[in-house]
């Protein structure tokens, strides 16, 4: 049996949470697409989450 990499479980769990949070924000925005304030807040939330992922500081996520 191959040896898995040490942080795979942690990375997997972290990304599951990230994706869940993103989908939650998108859902909130889409279901209130007519309400500019709520939609803008949802977009802002998505941006905040995605900025962290795009920065790619994996070590920080896992600490």
């Amino acid at each position: 049996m191959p040896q898995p990499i040490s942080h795979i479980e942690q990375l997997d769990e972290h990304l599951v949470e990230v994706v869940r949070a993103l989908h939650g924000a998108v859902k909130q925005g889409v279901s209130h697409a007519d309400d500019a304030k709520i939609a803008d807040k949802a977009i802002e939330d998505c941006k905040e989450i995605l900025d962290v992922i795009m920065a790619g500081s994996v070590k920080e996520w896992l600490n």
Partner: protein
Amino acid sequence: MFTDKIELKDLDKMDPEYRDLIGRVLTIQADCEIGGPHLYVEKMLPGAPTKLDQLIVARTAAEEIDHFRKVARVAGDMGVDVSFVLSQPNEKRFVDSFRGLITTWEDNAVFGFLIDRIGRYQLEEFYDCSYLPLQRILPDIVTEELGHIEYGYNKTRELLQKGDAQKERVQRAIDYWYVRALDMFGRSGSKRAERYRYWGLKRRTNEQAREDYIKEVNPILLSMGLNIPDPLKGRRYL
């Protein structure tokens, strides 16, 4: 030709070439999955034409991140760490198409329409492949890729309905991405592609997959009133 089906527990018994090929293809696939959001999130999340489109950009990125996660998990379980691609600058991406930045809505729409379709083609190569952990993650990923392709197609059509100037901009985007799409299949006659086929990891040669793509995409372009770009102009991998 290798026809067995391999589980993770059997991997140690396999030829090193088999393990190397899986590790390589998973690394490239992971890079492409996360490479998409790195191309379009920066400019398209704030720049999409409507709030709904902005949210769909975010949803698409979420799905691609999840695809990355699934591929990274299969790789990580076999001891291959692909997490370095999360912080890889765009210019170092494995595949040329991911080495820039999408700055216009036309490019974003055409990227979904033409390049996410390549993603589907690459994933379809692994249908019924010999490595079962890879095969198992495919259905959900492909379903979501189909959604990205359809969204890209619909947005491209919407843009085409906005007059001649807009049509010219779409055609420019098509001209740019079409040749990159064809290059993404790799070189014709590739020896490595033959080894992937030998080990039951891929179904088609690079040139067969490229030909299938052309047969699928060209009629769609024509039906949209677009010109088919010169398939050789600017190509790097023939």
